[in-house]
């Protein structure tokens, strides 16, 4: 086996394929994330705008940004994490780029994203 085949074999065999709804930068999503506290497990929701999807394969991550008490909070989730319970896509946004970091500088009305018309 060559290098690519070996890595693919390990990833295919030992990493569970996660299937989530399709979303991209500009969409508003809710990530239901499992949190372990000691022996107990609970689910925390993180709702915000997707800034980017980065990487590929099992190394893919996505960044979600929300405004919490006037402070911007960003969280990076591994897309293949077993801790993600589910992902809801709340809104489909229309943006022109794949990574919308310009959103970080915008506040209030300017930070709105046009919703996709279905």
């Amino acid at each position, binding site marked *: 086996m060559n290098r690519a085949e070996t890595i693919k074999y*390990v990833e295919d065999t030992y*990493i569970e394929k996660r299937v989530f709804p399709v979303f991209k930068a500009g969409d508003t999503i809710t990530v239901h994330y499992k949190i372990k506290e000691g022996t107990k497990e609970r689910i925390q929701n993180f709702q915000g705008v997707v800034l980017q999807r980065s990487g590929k394969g099992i190394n893919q991550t996505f960044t979600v940004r929300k405004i919490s008490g006037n402070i911007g909070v960003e969280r990076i989730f591994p897309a293949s994490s077993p801790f993600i319970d589910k992902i809801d896509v709340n809104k489909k946004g229309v943006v022109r780029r794949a990574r919308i970091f310009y959103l970080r500088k915008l506040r209030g009305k300017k930070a709105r994203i046009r919703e996709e018309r279905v």
Partner: protein
Amino acid sequence: MTSIYDGNGKNIPCTIIEAGPCIVTQLRTKEHDGYEAIQMAFEDQKEKHTTRAMKGHFAKAGVTPKKVIAEFTRFEADHQKVFGDILRVDIFTEGEFIDVVGTSKGKGFQGVVKRHHFHGVGEATHGQHNRLRAPGSVGASSWPSRVFPGIRMAGRMGGKKVKVINLQVVKIILEKNLVLVKGAVPGANNSYVIIERYL
């Protein structure tokens, strides 16, 4: 490298090492060679790329020609290895700690900041303009009138034997002879490494 998730859902960076099957091709003995060691070979080589001398060596051990040969001293004291014995990854256990020896990637001719972690000048002010990463003084003047041996200077970096100790074995894949080790190992992709374990 890749990464896998452990039982707690933690993402662990892993290096995949193909470890075996390794075949014992020679036993060095105190009487004959002056030291005790086991010689092992790994990975098939085309017969036309093998020298006649090596062909004879492999024929003696009864194996097909191999690419890599390494000798291991300080093997388990009570080993009973003989010609043609095959070692596979099942000699490792998940969770144990191993050392990995490899040849580091060559970095070419590098300055002292990269090669020896000198700090450089630090700032471009106080009259500096072109000596930001210079090594500084290499010794005194009229005595000794020379530079002492061993002063760290710029030069070739990398391409040397490096051992990384205490890497954890994350997973063993018996059917493909793969060992997943937590963290990085020395060397480029597809290079050969030696795995050591001290009991």
